[in-house]
């Protein structure tokens, strides 16, 4: 295919996925999709399920993982399901091409001349899908049954007819059925639009032309990735980092890789990582591969979002590893594990690609929830993820208060949270001294302090980095640890401030009116030796209060 037509078709295809993203973001109900863009859309191969095209604005982690979801549908069809035009599958099975139960996938075949030409899919993070805790981040889960309802691939639409029974089952299993209904509708709208656009593109250019364009784009992506790998020295590097615990047993978990570069191939061997654990920080194999893709794309930012990129990468992930689990091992806290995986990959490249890496970011999603009942008996659930510092990088200090590398999420305005829930933020500020020292300092984490205005509430936290701080690269130093305090009032002395025994994870905190919780999030790791930091920058940090003379620990 000529390079000009290919460039044009690439833009047209990407645009279809972008338009699906835009449709869902604007009509979704829950802020996790509408504001945090925890969703994604793409076009997938009819036979292999491989990612062909992915939207630019969706959640980065979904870029790799959606292919496995489409494969799950292909498997279902090959084992006897009758696939018809107008069918739409729905599921959230995390072991069958998923991430965690909150992420609901809709997969739709696109038919041309009576045969499946490709699939399009939509994934979005729903607000609540049952389970033991509102919002589904249950740090004490030992089986996925405690995390929420699990739906295997089933038909939501049968030849264009909605199966209302499924919507009723889903609604009955959520604490927030309205939100669920709104998000589901948004995803259906997105698929409708994607199908329409794809058909008109195919009408304009023919199936053959689009097929060969997709093939060529994959081949070019593969070639580009190989060029990046060839530029690195042949070697094997071993790196490991740790998770605080699994939320059930207070033992650290090791996330270790051996990264081997051999000519134009890369092998990532996870064999030295911990075995499957009791608590919810396990992940499935598909999630492990997808997270690796995210890390590689943060380092080699110009590689496209299609299956070709991972062709030169070989994965070794043992069956008993916590990075390759099956049902019903709990996986609700998958975000923490994949953030650590990304940190490990940054560290592995720090010497061979020192001009491309950065210090580790804050490395935890910090899912904090407060919930209770209002005087009129209605239930409220405030559930949000909180930010921290990014790592120092070759061009400068890390970004203060950034979003997690696996997402492009923004945080809801505190005024929206205060208007919606009976709480008051008493602090929403940067956390001095939290950035790792270095030639380029890590960005600062944040301090969020919340006071309860209602009679009673329950709080829980699912975080990480309470024991092992975000590392720096190229001799940059660590950022500050994650800290959480609760159960104290405005003028209480520090000894009244309680901390979770497991540091970063706790459920069932009872709060009374006037009591507070405080989250102090990690800063990013530093880049380069701190002795190389200029005097001017050191003084500026002190003058502005990013760093203070007396470091409080």
């Amino acid at each position: 295919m000529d390079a000009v037509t290919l460039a044009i078709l690439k833009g047209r295809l990407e645009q279809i996925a972008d338009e699906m993203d835009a449709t869902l973001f604007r009509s979704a109900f829950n802020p996790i999709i509408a504001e945090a863009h925890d969703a994604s859309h793409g076009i997938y191969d009819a036979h292999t399920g491989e990612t062909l095209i992915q939207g630019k604005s969706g959640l980065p982690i979904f870029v790799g993982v959606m292919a496995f979801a489409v494969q799950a549908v292909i498997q279902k069809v090959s084992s006897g399901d009758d696939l018809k035009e107008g069918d739409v599958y729905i599921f959230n099975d995390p072991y069958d091409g998923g991430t965690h139960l909150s992420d609901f996938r809709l997969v739709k075949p696109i038919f041309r001349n009576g045969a499946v030409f490709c699939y399009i899919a939509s994934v979005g993070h729903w607000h609540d899908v049952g389970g033991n805790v509102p919002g589904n981040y249950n740090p004490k889960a030992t089986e996925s049954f405690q995390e929420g309802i699990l739906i295997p691939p089933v038909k939501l639409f049968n030849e264009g007819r909605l199966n209302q029974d499924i919507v009723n089952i889903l609604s009955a299993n959520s604490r927030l059925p309205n939100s669920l209904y709104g998000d589901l509708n948004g995803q259906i709208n997105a698929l409708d639009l994607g199908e329409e656009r794809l058909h008109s593109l195919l009408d304009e250019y023919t199936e053959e032309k689009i097929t060969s364009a997709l093939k060529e784009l994959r081949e070019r992506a593969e070639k580009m990735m190989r060029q990046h790998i060839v530029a690195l020295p042949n070697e094997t590097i071993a790196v490991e980092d740790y998770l605080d615990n699994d939320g059930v047993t207070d033992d650290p978990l090791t996330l270790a890789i051996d990264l081997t570069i051999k000519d134009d191939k890369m092998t990532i061997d996870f064999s030295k990582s911990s075995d499957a654990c009791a608590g919810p920080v396990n992940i499935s194999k598909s999630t492990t591969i997808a997270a690796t893709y995210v890390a590689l794309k943060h380092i080699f930012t110009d590689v496209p979002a299609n299956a070709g990129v991972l062709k030169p990468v070989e994965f070794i992930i043992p069956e008993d590893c916590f990075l390759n689990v099956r049902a019903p091992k709990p996986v609700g806290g998958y975000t923490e594990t994949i953030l650590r995986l990304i940190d490990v990959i940054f560290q592995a490249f720090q010497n061979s690609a020192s001009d491309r890496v950065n210090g580790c970011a804050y490395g935890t999603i910090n899912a904090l929830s407060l919930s209770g009942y209002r005087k009129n008996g209605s239930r409220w659930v405030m559930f949000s993820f909180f930010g921290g510092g990014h790592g120092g990088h070759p061009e400068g200090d890390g970004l203060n208060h950034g979003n997690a590398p696996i997402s492009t999420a923004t945080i809801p305005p505190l005024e929206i949270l205060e208007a919606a829930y009976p709480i008051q933020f008493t602090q929403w500020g940067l956390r001095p001294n939290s950035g790792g020292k270095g030639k380029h300092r890590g960005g600062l984490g944040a301090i969020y302090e919340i006071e309860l205005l209602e009679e009673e509430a329950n709080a829980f936290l699912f975080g990480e980095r309470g024991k092992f701080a975000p590392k720096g690269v190229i001799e940059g130093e660590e950022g500050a640890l994650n800290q959480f305090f609760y159960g104290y009032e405005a003028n209480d002395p520090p000894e009244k401030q309680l901390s979770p025994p497991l540091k970063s994870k706790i459920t069932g905190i009872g709060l009374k009116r006037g009591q507070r919780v405080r989250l102090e999030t990690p800063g990013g790791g530093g880049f380069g030796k701190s002795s190389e930091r200029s005097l001017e920058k050191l003084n500026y940090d002190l003058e502005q209060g990013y760093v203070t003379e007396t470091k409080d620990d």
Partner: protein
Amino acid sequence: MTEKIVIGVDVGGTFTDILAFEEKSGRVSVAKTPSTKKDQSKGFLEGILKTTNDLSLVSTIIHGTTVATNALLERKGAKTGIITTLGFRDVLEMRRRDRPKTWGLWGTFTPVVERKNRLEVSERTLADGTIRSPINEKEVENCAKTLLENGCSAVCLFFINGYANPENERRAAKVLRSVWPNKHVSVATEILPEIREFERCSTATLNAYLQPPVANYLGRLETRISVERKKSEILIVQSNGGVMSVETAKSLPIRTALSGPAAGVVAARQIAKAAGFENIITGDMGGTSFDISLIANNQNMLTSQANIDFGMTIRTPMIEMTTIGAGGGSIAHIDLTGLLEIGPESAGSDPGPACYGFGNDRPTVTDANLVLGRIDASNPIGGKQKSLDYDAATRAVDNHIAKKLNLSIHDAAEAIIKVANAKMSGAIRLISIERGYDPKKFALMPFGGGGALHAGALMKDIGLSASIVPRYPGVNSALGCIMSDLRHDEVRTLNISLEELDCKNLAKNIEEITVESKKVIDRSKAPLIKKERIIELDMLYLGQTHSVSVSVSDDLKKLTRQNIEKAFLKSYTRAYSRPLEGISIRILNLRVSMIGVRPDIDLFVFSKGERAEETSDCVISKQKIYSNGAWHEAKIFDRLLLPGGSIIAGPALLTQPDATIFIEPKMNAKVDSYGNIILSEEMF
């Protein structure tokens, strides 16, 4: 006899464009003069004197300015301080917890106010408006003192939940204004009494940051003009496409952030309306970018928010514009996968395209157009140089594209244009779809120097039925200046469910805003034919975070819950196709816009002026044009001399001092009675 003149002045990065309009005779004169970057008011006056030598005849000068935009982009505002609620000094720096790019974690952000100049006072208002702690006046005074000692010349006052009850902020503002030595005090709820702390704080802070430079500039301008002429009124174009008095602009400079481009879209709307086009998409092609804006049912689309740069958020009504990196100076290159890409890197206007001969040797979109014969090398637009270097353009295309793709030079140049066109048409499609419109129902209005070179291809790519090229595409913004109405926008956060809404109270609220807004409009002495009011509600379903804008009747007696619900369902369905049953509807914000309508300008005047008798009299020369892989013999016409009703079959080039129009083979152009060129594949 005395002839009243209205003058539009658009100061851009490279040129200052002037359009002078004599009200009685309808005579129009156009001038372009280099912008004077150090003090824009200098080039401003020089330009005006090019169109008229008697300033005493000038009744009104309407000005689109980039002073605010440049001060923001170049971080050249005033040293500013913030006084805020205890616990929240970092709101400005923490943003909404985002990052500059999705891929790659190398972001850095330096807010316009240093951390040491962000001071806290103990005060707190809750979300329901309850004051939990009142202000301590002494504390505010001390903060002001510290900021002044630190050298701040402007200050922003911003309290959490001020939108719900501005009492604390009002009291603090009174103290602050009594001790602050100048007028540069921006109070967040006076500028934007709307929920969302970062957006409000950022908007108010940037306003404070701009107050000194914009006030100084406008002061200088007034002095320069009044030395020559005592009584001419100066009006400033806002980002919403309306104009305001100089006094208002000095206190609300943030509302001028997109002043110039907004005026261009205003002109586009009026020209299209007169020519009988209700739905158009404007495409303004400059040196570095292509700016797209949608006009549906003859209304400009407004957006409530935009980012000037990463973390520099402005929330005030603005004409919605989407900018993509595909301008005349955008550089073509081959990426690592071997694909041809255009931009985002741009040669801008300095050094500019390779054919400018100022040191850039990489091919740009303009170079490709030149190689294909779509620009007349001997008549470059803007007058910056006498002729363009055809050989330099050819070399650039050959070395960087043709050889690498194994194409002929002309096929490579055409590929550059095709990829650039695909980028522009893709953006146009996405924008229409995001707003819920079918782009096929629109006509294209290209302007800027290069827009009309691509109009035919964009029409075909998107499936548009026509393009309409205005008579002066290169000075469209200056024209828009003289067409803009006075406008003042206000917003209040309501945040209540529709069931709870007290319509009488809402009407009272609207009346109060109306009284205040009328005062702002009346600050200007410009003649008005009437005042209009637009009332809109930002509404959503309970649980959603993105609202839809719902227009409600200006007749406050019709303001009932049923009518509001009906209007909401209509807007919602248009945007998302599926309304939702059984979910409570909420009203987030009330928006009231007061418009002072200025006398219409009869666009028919553009059909006047010197014209040739016959179309054939306008042929300047002939040129070979490459299109769709073949050479075509084409005539070059003097566009401004073409008589009304002229029909020209493509391929052809129409040239004028400020723009070039390329009529593709198999496309036809017609000069309408207003002097516009209409492009179509149909026969006329």
